[in-house]
């Protein structure tokens, strides 16, 4: 089987790769994109959240075989450049959200997908759509940062 997909705008034509491999491990181990994190491997924590065709998806549950023609964006590809960060990343910095930081790539990707659809979510909408685990419990700042990002979008 030959498949092709895009990661952060680059076309990838995976060869000699096990098609059962979840996208998470392809990103981290084959592509060396380490920003996407492993937390559980069963879709329960959200640490591995990436965008596939604009939707927030938990990459540990997505086998490579299912990705033909898909457009994948990871935390490394979220900003236009290191000096031109995505509004969500800017908001995360403004609020100083992370504690240990491990869950934050996933939180940011989940927030970016939410805000792409809903420019000004309420607390309830944020709570409903952001289900990523943060053991450090940086939750109050996550909520604030999403609101802050909404403001940055407007500006």
């Amino acid at each position, binding site marked *: 089987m030959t498949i092709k997909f895009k990661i952060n705008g680059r076309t990838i034509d995976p060869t000699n790769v096990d098609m059962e491999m979840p996208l998470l491990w392809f990103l981290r181990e084959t592509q060396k994109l380490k920003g996407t*994190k492993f937390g559980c491997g069963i879709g329960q924590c959200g640490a591995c959240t990436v965008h596939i065709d604009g939707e927030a998806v938990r990459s540990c549950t997505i086998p490579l075989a299912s990705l033909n023609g898909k457009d994948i964006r990871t935390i490394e590809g979220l900003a236009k450049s290191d000096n031109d960060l995505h509004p969500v990343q800017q908001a995360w910095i403004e609020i100083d959200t992370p504690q240990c930081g*491990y869950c934050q790539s996933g939180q940011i990707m989940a927030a970016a997908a939410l805000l792409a659809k809903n420019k000004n979510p309420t607390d309830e909408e944020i709570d409903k759509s952001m289900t990523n685990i943060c053991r450090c419990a940086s939750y109050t700042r996550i909520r604030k940062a999403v609101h802050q990002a909404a403001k940055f979008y407007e500006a």
Partner: protein
Amino acid sequence: MQRSTISRRHFLKSSFLSGAWVLSLNLPMAAQAKTKQPSTTGWSLYVRVHKNNQVTMESPVMEMGQFMRTTGPMMFAEEMDLDWQSITFIRDTRLHLKRDDEGKIDFRYVKANTGGSHSVRWTWEYLRKAGAAARQMLIQEASEKLGVPIEELSTTRNTVVHSKTGRTITYGDLAEGASQRQINESQITLKNKNAFSIIGTDKRNIDLKDIVTGKPLFGIDAEYPNCKQAVIARAPAIGAQIASYDKKAALAVPGVQQVVEMSSQEETHWFNGNVQILAAGIAVVADNLWAAMKGKAALNATWKNTHDAAKENSEERIKKFYDLVTDDSPAERSKDVGNVDEAFSNADFTVERIYEKPLHAHALMEPFNCIADIRDDSATIITGHQNPKAIAEEAEKYAGIDALKVEVISKRMGGGFGRRYERDFVREAILLSKKIAQPVKVTWMREDEIERGMHDPACVARVKAGVKDGKITSWFYRQAQTKAGIQDSCFPEGLFENFRVERCSNETFIPAGPWRGPQHPAWAFANESMIDEIAYKLDKDPLEFRLDLLLPARELPYTNWGATIKDSGRMAICFQEAAKMADWKRKRPKGRGIGIAGHVCHGSYAAFVIEVSVIDERLQLHEAWGAIDCGLAINPNHIRSQMEGGFIDGLNAALFNKVKVEDGKVTNNQFGLLRMGKLEDAPIEVHTTIISNDHEPTGVGEPPTAPAAAALANAIFAASGKRLYRQPFAESFQV
């Protein structure tokens, strides 16, 4: 390089390397609160001042989300008068060790480990002295260059200023000359608090941009040349041994190279002294991680268990704890003041309750991982660990490598919470690398992390209080738990005339280790719930009732780890401030209620009020207000952050965190089975007041967590009239 230039005779040594000034210092150990920690060490922090007046710094203390990578440099930069914006921080931290006269391994410079909310206290004096020393050398150099007396010079933001003439000279220009100077400790003076311009201001996490852009900061992201990847099928039950496995099938997976048996080990646990069993396992070594994971699945490993630990069942244990705390069998009596029994018989009434707290999992977000390269007479180890010294000690003990020849590279930790003080995940990588004679990275799966947990102990506590003339006259606390001790010197100890604490002994193989404020949550839950209940029984305001106990302010002895005294006045102020923010007196509508609880530990004081509603058996958390007294506040921003995260972490533990062990095996070994608090479970806001005073700074990583369970239970009572004595609370209400 600079390591070899350090001589113990020299207080300070610096050199000019590759165009930058490198500073190393060797300071005597500062006096600190009496603790069981080793009492001698020295320290070094490398600061590089570049010609262009920019600065590169290595932050010496381990980082796990407690913000020491930011706080440490703030103390240093303050005394050196550095421009905070001019500093670039090196990502990883290297370990520098020495062997003392008795052959014991110790940190060569700063105490770089983190735990017990102590990293600020361990480094507070050193880091400031180091900065002050560097500043003094720069001033001396400037004095000579400008031909003016030292007394006429001042410093600000990487610049020495001669205000009489308005002349300035940058640190960058002074660095080379300054680095040749020698000064001794008597020449440096530390700033007066009023002169602080960095300490006491809000600073952001120095790694913030790297985190939000997904840079490879964590151990799990680390790569190493020619490194094999391994995962280990671990015996799921405590004490189990390998029964069978399909080696051929594993080796048939493309990329899998070796299958290696790892034997189990029994040892005395460093923290609680009980026997502890490290799991037997089968390591699958491959050239990539996915192959290793597939190989592990292909093993189809089965296990047998003849060990007594195979009978371990956490629910039965807890049931037994109820028996132990209610029968009057002999127990270790750790506190016995006055005459408790007599006071009970003279009391107007007594109240007796039993509180239950289950095993808490650590469930830190980054599964363990460790790269080990054990060579013939040296080694490299890359991981995130709370105590990097222990890594070198493990390599010496288990691979025969001189600890001083072990290169330890410490990465940012995706959570620590005490679990990353344990050595198991480092030791197995060392043993495996030695066995296969190649560098190897071992990565844990989530199931491994929860199954091999060294949980916060399950604890059942009986509290009996006697009341006479509206006052508590007698207090009896009796506890049974899976291993570990008892935080019997926290409040209310010292507040009642008659006070007794007993700890029932009980042998179990269920592992235990430090968990964010070890055993403090159990103590605070039971005692702060009981105080609340009595206040209601006496028809007194729970805040006023507490203040009456604590005031007038007095200093009382503290006999647990981390402090020598506790000040009831400092505790009272936290209650007052939290209550003030919460608008305590305001009546909440029906179905809503507020609860209060506070705790002292590790030298810091924290109190919280939380508002909840209980409507149709559905519990909702709304808002919380916390006040902390951690002495001088170094970085208020991150103190607030710890108050928010630490408190919500405590709420989540009380609501959901319950590890279940059956037949020696953790049954809820994944997220989903083990419920973790999520955004929707967290209060909308945790407001923080930081009490300002002149006490030396103390920690903030643990103190906010312990009061959470009691504050929540007290609020639930206020909202619903139902008092909770058993965690997890989510079993009593819909959440």
